């Protein structure tokens, strides 16, 4: 009996191993957003990123000088301010007076370099060389001098993972800067797309798209891209809008982390309101 059992196990060992390992994989997949798993992942990518950055240092020994970095930082700051200006332009004079207060808000930018890119059809993740030591936190937006790149999704001491806007699990509330139409931007594996915009809404090719004031994870008015196509769906009631991002994901290398966790600010605000009610 035992012999037969042993023989069966030996004969089927490849299949048993396969089933066992696949079950472990599926278990990990189901627990991938649990804190313990994220901690393990942070530890592993932190160590990998450290070794990777050593090679990166050698490769970049002839790279840009510090003044070029400073210029890029200024460029990114100007981009953020320009986005705000664009918004002001479309408001009436009364709102503009009120918004001038927001114009004085200064963003604290942390420069960083991309040291690793995971390019897959539905999973766009970059690793940057700035982490907890630089006061980078989960939820902070990451920008280039052209526009939004993504959001910090994981942080280690010296490194952080950026979930880019080309990641199907990231949905962002956006707005058309001209007509103020709001929508949800997502990545469908091929295009950045805003779905379910009523056909009667005023959206045109060339309109600039930025983060919306309704976004709960990002501050408003960060440029994302421009509309390149307005697709009419078969039903004819809804449009799908294709966006071309300003940031070139192919060649992007230097980025800035905006040191603001917008969702926390919103949460705090909501809590204050709640407290006031009490």
């Amino acid at each position: 009996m035992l012999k037969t059992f042993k023989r069966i196990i030996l004969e089927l060992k490849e299949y048993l191993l396969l089933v066992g390992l696949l079950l472990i994989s599926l278990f990990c997949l189901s627990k991938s957003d649990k804190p313990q798993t994220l901690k393990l992942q942070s530890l592993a990518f932190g160590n990998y990123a450290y070794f990777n950055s050593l090679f990166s240092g050698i490769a970049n020994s002839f790279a840009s000088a510090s003044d070029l970095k400073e210029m890029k930082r200024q460029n990114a700051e100007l981009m953020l301010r320009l986005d705000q200006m664009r918004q002001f332009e479309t408001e009436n004079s009364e709102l503009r007076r009120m918004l001038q207060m927001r114009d004085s808000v200064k963003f604290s930018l942390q420069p960083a370099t991309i040291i690793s890119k995971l390019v897959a059809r539905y999973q766009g993740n970059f690793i940057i060389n700035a982490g907890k030591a630089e006061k980078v936190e989960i939820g902070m937006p990451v920008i280039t001098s052209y526009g939004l790149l993504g959001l910090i999704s994981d942080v280690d001491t010296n490194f952080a993972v950026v979930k880019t806007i080309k990641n199907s699990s990231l949905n962002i509330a956006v707005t058309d800067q001209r007509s103020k139409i709001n929508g949800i931007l997502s990545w469908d594996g091929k295009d950045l797309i805003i779905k379910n915009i009523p056909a009667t809404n005023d959206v045109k090719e060339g309109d600039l798209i930025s983060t919306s004031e309704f976004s709960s994870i990002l501050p408003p008015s960060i440029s994302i891209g421009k509309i390149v196509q307005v697709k009419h769906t078969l039903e004819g009631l809804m449009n799908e809008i294709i966006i071309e991002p300003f940031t070139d994901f192919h060649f992007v290398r230097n980025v800035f982390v905006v040191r603001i966790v917008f969702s926390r600010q919103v949460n705090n605000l909501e809590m204050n309101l709640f407290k006031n009610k009490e």
Partner: protein
Amino acid sequence: MTKYKYPKLFLFFLIAVMLQLRVVPLIEIENVVPDLVIIVLVYSVLSVGQFYGTMLGFTYGLFFDLFSGGILGTAMFSKTVAGFVTGYFFNENKIDFNTRTYVFVLIVFIIATIDSILYTALSSAAPKSFFVLVLFGGIFPGAFTALISFPMVMFNNKKYVE
């Protein structure tokens, strides 16, 4: 090779991961990229067999998920299956033939396609259709990976013929 077989294979894997996450994004075409880890995996499995190959696939996938910051479990699953399926091409008497001739490119294409379909299906919220998934999420990346494995075979093929 025999004495330090597994450390060597793991070293190849680490080099492949580094190239995959640093160099490969530069040759991306419409979000389609070759998978260097699969090339190393196929080579490894054709050298060690199905049982150890399945374990190697699992290990490569686990470390790839951990290093890349991607969803833990996706590469683990797809590369375990890839390692297992590659095992069917293993033949102890034909290791050189399988790894040094153009048969290798064909095996890489088949395995990379399977791996990419599984990886895409697991990492995507909702693929538009099965056809899109197979073509853009499987065959294109598979063909690109096979293309990248060509120079490796051309170099090894000369040695094999000699």
